[in-house]
């Protein structure tokens, strides 16, 4: 029924439009018949004013967006040491863009309004000016040179991190697969053990080479814990397709590419608790909770469970299309104080991968002994491991 009504409305609208154009056509009777569909003074006038109105529309949209959405952009309150540098450059670029946008749109639409065609008006025959061309080549060139230099300076600082210089840095592996993240910590020796997908077997789901001495103390976590104030060097791997490790609050992002290890490094500067207390964040969370409360009311009315209230947490999101559930590939990131981090380490470091593999083997043996049979699938994966080891060599 609704569909029918909508259809009728659409048809009526179309008819109304058609009649409207008929009226326009009738006003043209008696004029140069062959040229009725070419703009005349009346059209130029109406559309000239509309051009001016459109300029206002652009400005109003801009102002409206700045007022209502101005708090969205991730500028300020960055949680990493290099963040303010990116934010500064962003602000400079945005200001520049707004200035140029305001001026050029004004000129464009104002000229379209001011010089709208009139019978008897003559255009100026003005085809060239080397001086003007020079001015608007050289000004952008200078402005861009400044932006490029600033940008490259920041880029070099962020991306070129010499690992040998940062002996105290913590090395963490971010491991991506459809559709979850895992973090591997290097343990007491601060060196990640070798790994390859060909070693993946059972609980060793990151493919760590168990024979590597450096791998003996490696452990994994499904929550990323990092301490405030220490440089973190991320080594990123993916086991299946491209993923992208995006941590917006740290102004950090790097793709995870199967077959290679990619790097990104930053120093966290705000713990999760500190970030939650930032005024902008408090306001944002309150706003989100308002929205969620309203949604919950609607849900309860429908007899569904209400939404949980939201508290802020740093997130690691996947930001490269990676398959059907790409939209829900996330990991919680927790920035601890050094003390909290030490406590967390103490609790989690003993749960090493090697230990987990041993435990799993013992369990499997206990379960298998009565049957005295080998599981076919485990034979198969063992074979692959052997082949893979040969290939890797």
């Amino acid at each position, binding site marked *: 029924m609704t569909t029918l009504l909508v259809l009728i409305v659409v048809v009526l609208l*179309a008819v109304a*439009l058609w009649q*409207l154009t008929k009226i326009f056509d009738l006003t043209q009777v008696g004029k140069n018949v*062959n*040229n*009725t*569909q070419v*703009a005349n003074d009346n059209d*130029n006038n109406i*559309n000239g004013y509309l051009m001016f109105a459109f300029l206002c529309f652009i400005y109003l*949209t801009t102002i409206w967006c700045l007022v209502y*959405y101005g708090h*969205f952009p*991730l500028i300020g309150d960055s949680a990493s040491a290099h963040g303010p540098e990116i934010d500064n*450059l962003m602000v400079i*670029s945005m200001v520049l*863009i707004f200035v*140029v*946008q305001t001026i*050029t749109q004004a000129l*464009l639409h104002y000229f*379209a309004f001011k*010089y*709208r065609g*009139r019978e008897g008006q*003559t*255009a*100026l*025959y*003005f*085809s*060239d000016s080397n001086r003007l*061309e020079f001015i608007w080549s050289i000004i952008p060139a200078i402005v*861009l040179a400044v932006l*490029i230099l600033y940008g*490259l300076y920041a*880029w*070099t600082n962020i*991306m070129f991190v010499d690992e040998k210089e940062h002996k105290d840095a913590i090395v963490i592996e971010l491991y991506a697969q459809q559709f979850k993240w895992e973090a591997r910590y290097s343990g007491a020796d601060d060196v990640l053990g070798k790994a390859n*997908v060909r070693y993946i077997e059972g609980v060793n789901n990151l493919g760590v080479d168990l024979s590597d001495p450096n791998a003996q103390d490696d452990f994994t976590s499904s929550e990323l814990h990092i301490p405030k104030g220490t440089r973190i060097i991320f080594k990123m791997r993916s086991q*299946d*397709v*491209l993923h992208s490790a995006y941590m*917006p609050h740290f*102004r950090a992002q790097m793709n995870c*590419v*199967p*077959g290679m290890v990619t790097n990104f490094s930053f120093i966290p500067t705000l713990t999760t608790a500190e970030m939650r207390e930032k005024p902008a964040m408090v306001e*944002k969370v309150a706003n989100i909770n308002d929205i*969620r409360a309203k949604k919950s009311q609607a849900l309860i009315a429908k007899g569904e469970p209400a*939404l949980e209230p*939201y508290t*802020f947490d740093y*997130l690691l999101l996947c930001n*490269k*299309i990676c398959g*059907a559930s790409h*939209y*829900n590939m*996330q990991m919680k990131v927790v920035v601890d104080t050094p003390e909290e981090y030490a406590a967390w380490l103490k609790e989690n470091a003993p749960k090493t991968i090697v230990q987990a593999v041993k435990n799993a083997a013992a369990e499997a043996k206990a379960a298998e002994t009565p049957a005295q049979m080998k599981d076919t699938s485990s034979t198969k994966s063992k074979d692959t491991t052997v082949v893979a080891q040969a290939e890797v060599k």
Partner: protein
Amino acid sequence: MSAEAHNHDHGHDEHEHHHKDTFITKYIFSIDHKMIAKQYLLTGIVMGVIGVGMSMLFRMQIAWPEESFKLFSFFLGERMAPGGVMTNETYLSLVTIHGTIMVFFVLTAALSGTFSNLLIPLQIGARDMASGLLNMISYWLFFVSSVIMVCSLFVESGPASAGWTIYPPLSALPQAIGGSGTGMTLWLVSMAVFIAASLLGSLNYIVTVINLRTKGMSMTRLPLTIWAFFITAIIGVISFPVLLSAALMLIMDRSFGTSFFLSDIYIAGEVLHYQGGSPVLFEHLFWFLGHPEVYIVLLPALGITSEIIATNSRKPIFGYRAMIMSIIAIAFLSTIVWGHHMFISGMNPFLGSVFTFTTLLIAIPSAVKAFNYITTLWKGNLQLNPAMLFSIGLVSTFITGGLTGIILGDSTLDINVHDTYFVVAHFHLVMGISALYGMFAGIYHWYPKMFGRMLNKNLGYIHFWVTATCAYGVFFPMHFIGMAGLPRRYYTNTNFPLFDDLQNVNVIITTFALVGGAFQLVFLYNFFSSIFYGKRTVQNPWRSNTLEWTAPIEHMHGNWPGEIPHVYRWPYDYSKPGHDEDFVPQTVPMKPGEEQLHH
């Protein structure tokens, strides 16, 4: 030159006496450039309706996630939208095919195909393209590739859904996503055929512009449309073969077990045999086409705009030579900036520095073009026809969208906005909407040349103003949700309470999109009804200088009866002092003592 042109003439006259058109040779397997242009346009409109329609559907999913719509079950069927709820794989495939169709089939093939074919011979004073046969083959290959692409929507495992950039391994492994099975195979076959079509077309355009210009039509008397089509064809010939090679290598990886792009993959519980390849290599090859592609889409639109703005301002285009230089500069730079799509792909950060540098340089010729357009309007006598409105609209979106390129082209800033909605807003404005405006402007301006009738101007005005308002309404707020860190290609954002405050913006965006999309029906109605019922046109309705308006309204093989016109001046002598009319066609000889610009 003149001798050649003359020979061509002669051959054609004879040809015409013996040749009788049947329905098939006139309307289907035509070798006449004007008919082929119309074929391109009609195919492009059909593909455009499919592409835009898809965007309406997935915008509804983003605004009202996982809700049930009858519209979904109607268009997508039970398999893709069970119970009227769009599935996540369907969402990704719609996004993928929308991008593919709009970028390649509408804005590359239909835009260049229509206007290069229509205008190159007519504006340079040639009887037809250098090779009518190749031209026909080019169109039919394009048609075949369109059919294959549309067919891929109906395969059981779903159409390609790895994004229009089809990065492997996602696009290479059917285990990774359903669409990477038969759907992806058809996608690759379709694109391979498409590239062949595009190359044949481009070679033909280049040869025609170089060899078949009429007497007096020196390179610096060419209209800027022709310059734009010419340079576009050159970058097409340089970059499309690279995509073809990437597509072939991907086919090899998928079907014949090679490892060009794949290495160390564990998926669905098993280790695959691939070793030693790199997805980053694919990204390089893809973007070596992909970035020039942006300008393959945009330059023809800018060329069309240059011509329309000059004609309707009744003024010479400002800085003709600077415009040519900037087209060439943009084309050259476009081939050495592809890495700005890959700042965080894992390639060496040093390359990031290089690509930042070259990328930001493109802003200079772009700024020159924008300022030249604005100066052309200054002190003009603007005839605000629908084509002119779309041209001004193009300059507006080109500026708005181009400026945010300063942020994305800067590797440092790209770290945090890469693959967010900021990128979506940027490229839709600067290349999607701008090129679409260019195409609309071209259609409104040259419709009389194509069909001998005029489009209804009032429907044109309604079409423009609603489209322009909705385009800003959609893409302006989108920058803000992008800067808030919202990633693109998410089926729904409900799993991130962090983004809950962005949801009402998405509803606003979708509302504008739906209204804007619906008003394209006004254009479609205008287009198709005017073919039969439009007002008959006069020979030169816009009082333009270029040669196509000296040809008779009725189409004929060979374009001009009798001799082809000779050219005595550049195409932009509008409102030149010392002439009675405010336009002086290129065929009018110089008066004694008249100052000659750009000889």
